[in-house]
């Protein structure tokens, strides 16, 4: 018997993720949750069959000494139309393209033909899109050390052809000495946005013809005690002192992404409160600012993440952002190696990945640098482990995503079935109760809605539901209420009349009140 038990135990044992999933409840307390993603595999050079680069018979042949691993790869781009992942293999000065199903290498590029410099020099950003003007697939590479952004078309799986090179702007508006683009992004009108080293006035914006158009979406200075103190000192300091003072400048953002509607999302590594994650409209205005009573929070909520290794609370360092084709926002936290996934309304959907566990373990990251999504998979590029971790959506994650997608479209009733499935798997998933509450509210089941909102501790929605519930109650019991009110008034009136006429229905208690002698109450 014992043997059988032992056997079933070993049979049911499985390798779990090296991290715990959690979500935040209405008090910003972390509540353990189900994993919405699990590690499917990791892609290293071996999985990519990168040794083909050393095989002279192979069309991808590069040379006998072609590096067989990634090296400090900085960026990754998932081009969903052709099911390709483009990897900026920065230190090896090359771009790798792998297939998203087999993870095998399909193309490798070491430079762009017909451009000022043939070879790449530490390319740190890559962006692939379909150009409407050329009617072709075009690749934009932030060729960092060559001080350029190259726009190229694809000739074959070994050569890129240059279309245009965006170099350091000559206008006076551009004041920085260097031009080292780190990340690049292109909108539908083929304007090119680059995050450039040491430029803190936003991303550098080029028009499609290569004109420098200015800067886009600068960060603000995070107001800290030091900044306030300096503001006061500045007011009383002399000219000489002012010159010696440090200036408070906003931090540059680390990365950005663009969604299907053309909104640009940025992440900033150092800030926590101000502009950590921004959603910029075409005018460069941050939609997710916390000015109008909103409270958008990203990453781990500070004060709740205790790290036993450093014996302190740490803050998130958000390093990359990706908007999936279904509208979910994935934010990569360099500090903890976590990917935070948000829905369109910035509600935390799930989180996965870690850094605390040993980095040799699958699912644990050492130096995560980029995140990309493709269908139900999330890819995280690690620039120290030189691999890509593939996270795959679990059944729980599938229900959560489906529910959130319907919910965000306002199809609350249709989302109900998915929320029910979510609750079956994780009864502590706060947002499921909000979703169910809204479904009930839509169906005019007010008491049910109130119950759900109470469970989720969602006071705003409870308030709305309460208003309807109260209205419904008054409507349903209108006659009864009127009857009671009329009866009460009648009772008081008759009592007064009877009192005036000196008729007593209720006999007073025979015992007279002991102390009260005269009725002289008040000022009399």
């Amino acid at each position, binding site marked *: 018997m014992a043997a059988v038990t032992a056997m079933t135990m070993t049979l049911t044992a499985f390798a779990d993720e090296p991290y715990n999933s959690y979500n935040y409840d209405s008090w910003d307390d972390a509540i353990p949750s189900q994993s919405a993603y699990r590690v499917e595999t990791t892609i290293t050079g071996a999985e990519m069959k990168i040794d083909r680069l050393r095989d002279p018979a192979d069309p991808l042949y590069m040379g006998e000494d072609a590096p067989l691993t990634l090296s400090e790869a900085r960026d990754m781009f998932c081009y969903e139309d052709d099911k390709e992942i483009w990897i900026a293999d920065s230190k090896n000065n090359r771009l790798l393209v792998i297939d998203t199903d087999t993870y095998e290498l399909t193309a490798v590029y070491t430079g762009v033909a017909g451009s000022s410099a043939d070879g790449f020099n530490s390319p740190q950003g890559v962006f692939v899109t379909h150009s409407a003007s050329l009617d072709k697939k075009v690749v934009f590479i932030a060729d960092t050390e060559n001080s350029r952004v190259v726009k190229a078309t694809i000739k074959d799986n070994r050569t890129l052809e240059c279309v245009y090179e965006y170099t350091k702007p000559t206008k006076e508006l551009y004041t920085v000495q260097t031009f080292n683009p780190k990340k690049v992004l292109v909108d539908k009108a083929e304007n090119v946005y680059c995050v450039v080293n040491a430029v803190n006035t936003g991303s550098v914006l080029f028009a499609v013809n290569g004109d420098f158009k200015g800067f886009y979406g600068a960060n603000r200075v995070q107001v800290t005690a030091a900044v306030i103190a300096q503001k006061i000192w500045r007011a009383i300091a002399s000219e000489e002192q002012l010159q010696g003072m440090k200036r408070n400048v906003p931090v540059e953002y680390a990365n950005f992404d663009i969604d299907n509607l053309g909104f640009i999302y940025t992440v900033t590594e150092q800030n926590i409160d101000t502009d950590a994650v921004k959603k910029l409209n075409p005018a460069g205005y941050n939609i997710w600012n916390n000015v109008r009573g909103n409270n958008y929070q990203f990453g781990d909520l500070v004060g709740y993440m205790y790290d036993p290794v450093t014996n302190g609370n740490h803050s998130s360092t958000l390093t990359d952002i990706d908007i999936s084709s279904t509208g979910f926002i994935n934010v990569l936290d360099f500090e903890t190696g976590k990917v935070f996934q948000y829905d369109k309304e910035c509600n935390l959907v799930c989180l996965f990945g870690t850094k605390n566990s040993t980095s040799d373990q699958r699912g644990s990251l050492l130096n995560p640098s980029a995140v990309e999504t493709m269908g139900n998979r999330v890819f995280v590029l690690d620039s120290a482990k030189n691999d890509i971790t593939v996270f795959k959506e679990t059944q729980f994650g599938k229900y959560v995503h489906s529910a959130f997608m319907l919910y965000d479209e306002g199809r609350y009733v249709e989302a109900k079935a998915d929320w029910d499935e979510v609750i079956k798997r994780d009864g502590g998933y706060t947002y499921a109760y909000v979703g169910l509450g809204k479904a009930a509210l839509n169906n005019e089941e007010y008491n049910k809605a109130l119950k759900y909102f109470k469970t989720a501790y969602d006071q705003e929605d409870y308030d709305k539901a309460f208003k309807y519930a109260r209205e419904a109650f008054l409507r349903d019991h209108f006659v009864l209420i009127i009857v009671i009110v009329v009866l009460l008034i009648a009772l008081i009136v008759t009592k007064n009349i009877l009192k005036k006429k000196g008729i007593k229905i209720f006999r007073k208690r025979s015992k007279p009140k002991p*102390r*009260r002698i005269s009725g002289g109450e008040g000022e009399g």
Partner: protein
Amino acid sequence: MYEFTQMGWLKHVIFHPVEGFEDLRWKKQGSIKIAMIIVFLLFVAMVADRQLTGFQFNTAYVKVFNIVPLLVQSVVYFFTWVIGNWALCTLFDGEGTLKKICIYSAYALVPYIVCTFLAVFVSNFIVQEESIWMNAISYLGIIWSVVLMVQAMKAAHQYTFGKTLVSMFFTIVAMLLILFLAILLLSLFQQVYAFGYSIYTEISYRIRG
């Protein structure tokens, strides 16, 4: 002239803020029993405010319910107020005895307690848009109680209005002092206990060898 029951007197002082406490003092009325009930009700009102306020208004952290802070905020604060006020005003020609201060202060708190209960009741039937009603009730209670408290202290000590305000301000200072010393004393005793306990452990280890 005024002949009321004890409850009648309570009603009288509440609804006659100007003369009520003077009458009470002149007639040597006021019951310590009722005062204690009022203090208890103050505590109950605090608990009700935390636990029974309508869901849409309740900002309390519902995962933990600790009664000690509520007890301190009601009962302990009240008696510190009484003792502080007595200690201070005895030195400054106040005529109030400890018992009188206790009774008068408790009587003055009644509007606050009643309005808190009312606000809690109302909060269960209104939505956030209408929260002004609830706030109006609770502010009414607070202001009324403050007015009564000033009158109560004025009558108890036979002070002028200005002197009453000054004495009340310094009573609050005295309260802080008392609470500070109490906490100091507590931590001191805790250390004495810890010291004794460590000696006990030490000896018991030695004996066991």
